[in-house]
């Protein structure tokens, strides 16, 4: 050792491992315009496809006239359902066990449904062709309101299901009914309500909205007739699943399908499922023998690709008079649109909505979900949340506030009184989950101290008095959102997609010079996997993160994985990384023992290599072990240093957090101002705090948008009235509040590195915090529940309904 020998701290820092605020390596290309997105893929002779879409929400398609379109210079083909029937692809299976039209087959079920696919030599000619296709429609009665879907005289939407009294998830009660899903003990729950001192009941709606990623859905399909191989570049959150689905429905051998997800500009659940554009581009490429590109525009994305939410949750809580909850009963009416194309694990038609007991110790609960068809676009995807978890968190967090109001208790106090206690973990919930770990009281109290909760309530009381005296026209709301997420789908015992267990995978290959590559079954859409996955490896095996290249998205080279959504990457793939790294480390230890001429058990791990116990000078770095792995392994050992792990998680992980929003609302205009937003997240072990904060900022911004105005709204004729960013609220930096972040750390006991996943927590916890702030602001005027979204005019409407603005 000399002065130049790095200290332990320097060696640790050089790794940039877990806990380091490592700068995102992918941003070097993204900030210089050097990303490679699907629309950057340009192949020789590539054709372009575009859709003719239905102006009607419900209509019979009498005829499609393509003659004039085919005369447009550059137009080569117009594909309709009749064309697709020749290859048995007019309909496709959905992830939810339903089937969906690829192109209108006899009728259309929602506005902007795909009717015909025009293929041309360039995008302009394709659109010129689209404008020349003439479709004869016979309008049919339109069903927009899900509450009318099961009326006896409701229009029949799905004629293809005539006579089918059961679907993928059990019996159907009506021609527009999809499934009923029940969980929990009904009798015990009913009994708890009979005995209750206090009950509340409210229909809490979580309106239809949309993930609207910056980059819309798109693909390039290229069929090589000679090799019989199909290559698809696409915006896929789950490339391997897409490959398997294409193989199954197109009857192509899976090894002859190459799915490549290049850089992706945001997914938020929108890019999990399969869309008609993918099928049509693939068929068009097979028919023409040329590559075909399909890129949807913003209006198409908002109006036709997968929406989110549209859950109408009738919620009841039973409690004692001193505020101990004794039962929860929820009935959900779920509007799925024209086809059931939810992207949930196959056995979970309502996702993990049974996390609806939230962070509270409900002794009994019962949940029933009815899914119905309406004349709206299909979807129901997990928009920046685990499956239906934002809906569940909103439901219970709103209901707890309503209960607090009825009891005359402070909502924070009510929560503290009913939280699952630290000693109750692992906690078995009344609706069937095993919560892995949590310390809710600590998180809640830290939040309350950080924001001076008592001071805020005092200020609010003063402002309310001033309002009543007529001295101000502004009201103040304090909204708490305390959420428990359930992420990391999931254990093979209860999670699969089309029969494929929801494991994930990692393959690590180290090179002789102490560098390496890690390939994953996940796919980043902005999460920063290239940065964080390398950090896990760095901490596990002592190779600097900068020396590890992370590669995802190419099904030919990546190990099979189920992809990135539902905050599953860190809980599942993050575990696979650690397990693969540990296999490498075990082999490295044998090599080091051989080279250092000691027994393996005499070695101990020390930051970036092994050293002999009691002889710290006698050590071998991982860098040197890598070299040795390629030239002098112990006799009988295979050379090389690589490992692969497929990780089937034993349980989900349960991140949680305590959020608080302070909002002022001008009752005369309904204009609100978010004065303060504090977000404490506990996602277990923190891999990269900077990326966590970025994730929280982004998720809160989406939560803000959803709660305060973002919606997909239909008029009574089924026309989408929010089909562009003019009317679909997408906040800019100007509207976005300032975010304060904080954290506690409660590691997951079953995860190899104790990490839980965080990307979606802010959306799950943010929406109830905003909505509770609005509701809290109005509560002293007599409001119990005001539906989202809380945009300006609706706030004014609420004030007017409460009699505080003159008509």
């Amino acid at each position: 050792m000399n002065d130049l020998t790095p200290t332990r701290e320097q060696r640790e820092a050089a790794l940039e491992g877990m806990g380091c605020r490592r700068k995102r390596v992918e941003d070097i290309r993204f900030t210089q315009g050097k990303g490679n997105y699907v629309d950057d893929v340009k192949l020789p002779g590539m054709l372009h496809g575009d859709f003719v879409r239905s102006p009607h929400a419900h209509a019979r398609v009498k005829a499609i006239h393509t003659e004039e379109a085919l005369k447009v210079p550059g137009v080569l083909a117009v594909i309709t359902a009749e064309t697709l029937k020749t290859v048995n692809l007019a309909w496709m299976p959905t992830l939810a066990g339903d089937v969906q039209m690829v192109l209108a087959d006899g009728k259309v079920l929602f506005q902007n449904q795909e009717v015909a696919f025009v293929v041309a030599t360039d995008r302009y000619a394709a659109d010129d062709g689209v404008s020349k296709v003439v479709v004869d429609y016979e309008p049919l009665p339109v069903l927009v309101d899900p509450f009318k879907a099961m009326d006896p005289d409701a229009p029949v939407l799905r004629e293809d299901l005539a006579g089918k009294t059961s679907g993928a998830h059990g019996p159907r009660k009506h021609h527009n009914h999809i499934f009923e899903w029940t969980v929990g003990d009904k009798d015990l729950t009913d009994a708890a309500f009979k005995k209750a001192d206090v009950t509340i009941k409210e229909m809490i709606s979580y309106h239809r909205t949309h993930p609207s990623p910056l980059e819309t859905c798109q693909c390039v399909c290229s069929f090589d007739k000679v090799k019989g191989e199909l290559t698809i570049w696409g915006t896929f959150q789950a490339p391997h699943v897409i490959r398997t689905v294409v193989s199954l429905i197109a009857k192509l051998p899976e090894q002859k399908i190459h799915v490549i997800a290049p850089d992706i500009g945001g997914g938020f659940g929108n890019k999990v499922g399969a869309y008609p554009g993918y099928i049509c581009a693939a068929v068009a490429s097979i028919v023409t023998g040329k590559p075909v590109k399909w890129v949807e525009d913003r209006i198409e994305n908002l109006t036709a690709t997968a929406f989110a939410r549209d859950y109408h949750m009738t919620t009841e809580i039973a409690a004692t008079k001193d505020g101990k909850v004794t039962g929860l009963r929820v009935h959900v009416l779920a509007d799925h649109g024209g086809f059931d194309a939810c992207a949930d694990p196959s056995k979970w038609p309502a996702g993990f909505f049974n996390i609806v007991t939230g962070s509270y110790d409900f002794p009994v609960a019962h949940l029933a979900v009815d899914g119905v068809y309406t004349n709206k676009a299909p979807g129901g995807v997990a928009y920046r949340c685990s499956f239906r978890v934002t809906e569940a968190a909103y439901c219970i967090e709103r209901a707890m506030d309503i209960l607090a109001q009825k009891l005359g208790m402070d909502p924070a106090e009510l929560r503290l009184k009913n939280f699952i206690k630290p000693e109750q973990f692992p906690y078995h919930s009344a609706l069937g989950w095993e919560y892995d770990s949590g310390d809710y009281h600590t998180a809640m109290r830290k939040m309350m101290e950080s924001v001076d909760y008592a001071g805020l309530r005092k200020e609010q009381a003063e402002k309310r008095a001033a309002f009543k005296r007529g001295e101000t026209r502004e009201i103040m709301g304090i909204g708490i959102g305390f959420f428990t997420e359930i992420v990391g789908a999931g254990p093979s015992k209860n999670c699969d997609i089309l029969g494929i267990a929801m494991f994930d995978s990692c393959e690590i290959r180290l090179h002789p010079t102490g560098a390496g590559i890690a390939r994953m079954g996940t796919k980043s859409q902005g999460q920063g996997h290239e940065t964080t996955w390398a950090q896990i490896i760095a901490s596990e095996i002592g190779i600097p993160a900068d020396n590890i290249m992370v590669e995802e998205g190419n099904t030919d080279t990546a190990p099979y994985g189920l992809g990135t959504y539902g905050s599953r990457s860190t809980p599942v793939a993050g575990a696979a990384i650690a397990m693969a790294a540990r296999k490498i480390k075990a082999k490295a230890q044998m090599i080091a023992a051989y080279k250092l001429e000691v027994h393996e058990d005499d070695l101990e791990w020390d930051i970036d290599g092994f050293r002999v116990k009691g002889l710290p000078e006698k050590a071998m770095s991982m860098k040197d072990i890598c070299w040795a792995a390629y030239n002098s392994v112990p006799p009988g050992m295979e050379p090389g240093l690589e490992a692969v792990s497929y990780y089937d998680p034993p349980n989900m992980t349960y991140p949680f957090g305590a959020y608080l929003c302070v909002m002022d609302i001008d009752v005369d205009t309904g204009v609100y101002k978010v004065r303060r937003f504090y977000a404490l997240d506990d996602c277990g072990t923190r891999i990269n705090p900077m990326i966590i904060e970025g994730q929280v900022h982004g998720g809160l911004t989406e939560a803000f948008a959803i709660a305060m105005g973002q919606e997909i709204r239909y008029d009574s004729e089924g026309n989408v009235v929010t089909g562009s960013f003019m009317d679909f609220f997408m906040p800019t930096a100007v509207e976005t509040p300032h975010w304060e972040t904080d954290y506690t750390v409660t590691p997951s006991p079953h995860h190899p590195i104790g990490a839980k996943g965080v990307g979606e927590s802010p959306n799950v916890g943010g929406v109830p915090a905003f909505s509770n702030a609005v509701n809290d602001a109005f509560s002293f005027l007599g409001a119990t529940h005001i539906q989202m979204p809380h945009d300006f005019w609706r706030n004014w409407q609420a004030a007017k309904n409460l009699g505080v603005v003159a008509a």
Partner: protein
Amino acid sequence: MIPGPFDYHRPASVGDAIKLLADLGDEARPLAGGHSLLPMMKLRLATPAHLIDLHGIAGLKGICREGDRIAIGAMTTQAELLASNDIGEALPILHETALLIADPQVRYRGTIGGNVANGDPGNDMPALMLALDATYRLEGPNGAREVPAREFYQGAYFTALEPGEILTGVSIPVPPAGHGYAYEKLKRKVGDYATAAAGVVLTMAAGKVASCVISLTNLHETPLLASDAANAVIGTTLDDAALKAAANAARAIMQPASDARGPAEYRIHVGGIMVMRALQRAASRAK
């Protein structure tokens, strides 16, 4: 979101532009900043066969003071208005309003001529032009004419522009020194049109309103001059009763559509609030 085919023309003079318009007829549209026309073309709601781009005409740009008037070339962008000291000193309400139009990217391209000539009730500048009593210079095959802004707007997208005419300039009388002004615009987010907006230009004397004009944006098919509302405050100290009277007089002439910004009832209500707030802020600025 892909426009249909069109031919592109870039004349170098107003004369050439007018000749092109005359020759090409109904199939031609002049192109200024393009912020209204291009989105319509991308949606194929407009499919002009010819676009006549006015950016090549040097004489259509610029701001100059001509005695007690300010003349602004039609192709002057919102960003250029914001950069102009002459505008800032003589017509500060134009600065306040331009800053509320869309976002910086739009303002670099969007022009005052396009904003006022298109007849879009959502545009902000037309209401100001009513308040300031501006006149527009229209040039066509039969020569040039001046039309007061107050007589220009006939309905949504219907104006006094005759076929073949181009709006080439705006002339605004400079309001008296010490005038108070305000443009209050309620919008959902940056880039949005007004849910309701009100512009006020007034003068005060001895604590009372001496003169006042009020105009309204996006509360009718056309921008509105709210004369009754203005009369309701002249001679008052802008006490509560006067403010309410002005708001109610303004509300009486509003006929907004119900849209995603809110039902008509809401837009009328906040329209009155915008009037009251603009009056108060204008008065606080008057010297």
